[in-house]
C-alpha cells in the first residue's frame, strides 16, 4: 500500500504556502517585509512557489537602518533583479533627517529601536493592510504566543492579552478601517528547519552566514564587526578572526560567532551541536528579559 505522508519540511512548506495564499486572497494591499536575512529569504522563496507561474502579487518592503552590512544590500538588489520582484525601501536615516526620531548616543547606540517608527510610517504611507514577516515562534518567548494572523490596532500595537483565537487553519483577517495585520507565514519553522530547507532547496543566501575572515572586537561576550557605526571603547581592540553570523540585522547589534562552517552542511552540523540560541548574539534582546515583548507591543517586526 502506498503511504501518503509528507516529511516535516514539506508539511511546513505546504502550511506556509497556504498562509501566503490566504494573505493574497483576504487582503487588498499586502506587503512582505524583507530584511535580507535567511528567514525573509525563505519566506520570499515560499511566496514565489505559492503563486507560480504567476508573479508574487505584492511588493517587498525593506526597512533600511543605514547601518546594514553592504553584503546584505548587494544580495538584496541582486535577488530583486533576478526575480523581478518590486522592492520598496523605508529609510531610518530619512526618519532621523526629518526629525521624527532621535538617534541614540553612546557606546551601545543602535538604530534597532528606531526601525519601528520607520516601519509604521512606511506601512501607513503605502496604505498596506497586511505586512508579512519572517518571525518564527521558536525565536523568542514573546513570539511563542504570536498568531499566524496577528491583529494590530490603528497605532500598530500588539496586545498579547487580547489576541483572536486561531483555530484549525481558518484565518480571520477581518478588520476595521485603519487597522492592519502582521502575518507570520513561517511561524512554525525552527532555525534548524530553515537551514535544512535552504540546503534542500538550494536557496542562495548572503555570504555573511558562511565562515569568513573579519575584523571584530568583543563586547559583553559578543563579537561585533569593527565598523564606523559603532563607537569602540579604548580597551576594545579589533582583531582578525574567522567568524560567521547566525542572524543578520543591523551591524551595531548583530554579533558574530567564531566558526569554520563554510558551507550549508557544516552550518547545519554547527546549529545542531550549538548550545546557544541564535538570538543569543543579539544585544538588542539582552537589554532586558522582556525586551522583545516590549518592542513587539509597540509595533516592532
Amino acid at each position, binding site marked *: 500500500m502506498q503511504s*501518503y*505522508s*509528507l*516529511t*516535516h*519540511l514539506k*508539511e*511546513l*512548506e*505546504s*502550511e506556509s*504556502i*497556504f498562509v501566503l*495564499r*490566504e494573505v493574497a*486572497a483576504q487582503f487588498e494591499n499586502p506587503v512582505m517585509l524583507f530584511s535580507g536575512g535567511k528567514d525573509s529569504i525563505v519566506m520570499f522563496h515560499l511566496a*514565489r*512557489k*505559492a*503563486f*507560480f*507561474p*504567476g*508573479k508574487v502579487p505584492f511588493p517587498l518592503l525593506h526597512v533600511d537602518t543605514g547601518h546594514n552590512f553592504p553584503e546584505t544590500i548587494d544580495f538584496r538588489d541582486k535577488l530583486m533583479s533576478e526575480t523581478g520582484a518590486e522592492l520598496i525601501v523605508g529609510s531610518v536615516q530619512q526618519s532621523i533627517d526629518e526629525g521624527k526620531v532621535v538617534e541614540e548616543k553612546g557606546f551601545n547606540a543602535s538604530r534597532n529601536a528606531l526601525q519601528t517608527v520607520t516601519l509604521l510610517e512606511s506601512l501607513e504611507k503605502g496604505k498596506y493592510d497586511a505586512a508579512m514577516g519572517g518571525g518564527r*515562534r521558536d525565536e523568542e*518567548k*514573546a513570539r*511563542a*504566543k504570536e498568531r499566524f494572523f496577528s491583529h494590530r490596532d490603528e497605532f500598530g500595537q500588539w496586545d*498579547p*492579552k487580547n489576541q*483572536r*483565537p*486561531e*483555530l*484549525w*487553519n*481558518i484565518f*480571520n483577517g*477581518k*478588520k*476595521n478601517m485603519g487597522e492592519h495585520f502582521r502575518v507570520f507565514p513561517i*511561524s*512554525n519553522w*525552527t532555525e*534548524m*528547519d530553515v537551514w*535544512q530547507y535552504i540546503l*534542500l532547496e538550494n536557496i542562495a543566501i548572503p555570504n555573511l552566514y558562511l565562515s569568513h575572515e573579519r575584523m571584530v572586537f568583543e563586547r559583553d561576550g559578543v563579537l561585533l564587526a569593527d565598523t564606523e557605526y559603532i563607537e569602540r571603547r579604548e580597551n576594545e581592540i579589533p582583531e582578525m578572526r574567522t567568524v560567521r553570523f547566525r542572524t543578520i540585522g543591523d551591524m551595531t547589534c548583530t554579533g558574530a560567532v567564531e566558526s569554520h562552517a563554510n558551507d550549508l*552542511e557544516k552550518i*547545519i*552540523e554547527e546549529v545542531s551541536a*550549538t*548550545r*546557544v*540560541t541564535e538570538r*543569543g548574539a543579539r544585544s538588542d534582546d539582552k537589554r532586558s*528579559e*522582556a525586551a522583545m*515583548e516590549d518592542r513587539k507591543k509597540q509595533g516592532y517586526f
Partner: protein
Amino acid sequence: MTKEHGYLDMDLLRFTTAGSVDDGKSTLIGRMLYDSKSIFTDQMEAIEQASKKSGVEAEVNLALLTDGLRSEREQGITIDVAYRYFATPKRKFIIADTPGHIQYTRNMVTGASTANLAIILVDARHGLVEQTARHSFIASLLKIPHIVYCVNKMDLVDYNEDRFEEIKDQLEAFSSKLEVNDIRFIPISALKGDNVVHKSTNMGWYEGSTLMYTLENIHISGDENHIDCRFPVQYVVRPQSTEYHDYRGYAGRVAGGVFKKGDDVVILPSGFTSKIAAIDTFTGEVDQAFAPMSVTLRLDDDIDIGRGDMIVRPNNQPEVSQDVDMMICWMSERPIMANGKYAIKHTSKDARCIVKEIQYKVDINTLHRLEDDKDIKMNDIARIRIRTTSPLFYDRYSRNRVTGSVILIDEATNETVGAGMIVE
C-alpha cells in the same frame, strides 16, 4: 544517506498538553525539552536568573522554561496558547501548550484544533477528577486521533503499581463514553524524569514505552482523510504574462482524498464537470496530490471557478446545505445570541449565518445535555443549528477536520467568537 541528511526522513507530530493547575504540565514540557537536549545555554541562564528572582525554589525551576510573557511570570500564570518546538532524530514536534485555568476551554480547543495527539496529565494522588473529564471530552470533541494519559507524580505514591492500575481502570471506564480510537496510559514523574525520556528504574513493573518513545513512534500518517477528495479553491492563479498567456490554475491545499492527473471532477456549487489536466507546483508537475499538500490544479475545460468553490469527485461529494447542525465552543465575552447574525468562515468560503436554534448546552464535566440551559457564554460548548446565506459544502467533522470545521465572527468587532464542529 549521510547522518546530516537524516532529516529528509523526519515527519511532524503536533500535540497538545492538558492538565489542571498543579498537575505538573510545565514541568513535564520542561523535562521533555531538557532531557531531549532542546534547551540552549542562554535559555538556561535566563531561567536560572528568573528562578532566583521569583525565589520560590532554590534549584532551577524547569517549569519556567515555558513561561512566556512578563505579565505571566509576574502573576505566575499562563495566559495564552504558546507553541514550542523540539526535534529528535526521528521527528519534529510542535507542542500547543495551553494554560490550566483562565479561559481554559477556549484555549484548549484552540490548541487541540491542530493536534494529532493530546497528552492529558492526571495526578497520581487524585486520580480522575472533574478537570480530567473536561480535558478528555474536549480532546474527543476536537477529534484528536491519539490520547495519552500520563499518570504523573508517581514518585508521590511510591511508584505503586496498584495505584496506577486503579487510575487506569477509572480512565478506561470513563473514556469508553468518548469517541477516541487510540488511548494509552503511561506512569511518569515529570519532576524526577521517570518514563518521560528515560525508562524509569523505579517502576520495573511497567512494561510499556516511555512518553518520548510513544511520541516518536506513534503512527500518524493515517490521521489525514485520504478517501474523500476535497479541494477548496483558495486563489486563482492567472499570470497573464506572454509565457503563460492563457494559464488559469486553481491554487489550494488538498483537504481530503488523493487527486490524480486525468481524474474526473465536479465543481461546487456550479455542478460543472471536467478533468484534471495537470497538478502544478513550482518545481514542476506532480502525478498526484493528497492532504495536506498545497498545489495548483489545472482543468481541461475553461470554467468560471473562484475562491470558495470546491473541486470534488463526481462519485463522492460532500453535503451541500444552508442548514447545518454543529457543536460550538463559544469564545467571546458576549454570549451567543439566539437568532443572532454572524459572519462565518468555512474552508475558503465566506458567508453570513443566523443562529436558528440553540439545542442544548453540554455540561463539560459530566457530559450531560442541559436541554433547558440556552445561555451560552464564554467557554461553553453547545449544539446549535445555523442557516447560512449560501450553501456550505461540508463533511461531518468526525469524517474530515478541514471540511467539517467553521469559525463564527462577530460582525461588529470582527473577533472570532465561536469554533464550530459540524455534526450534520
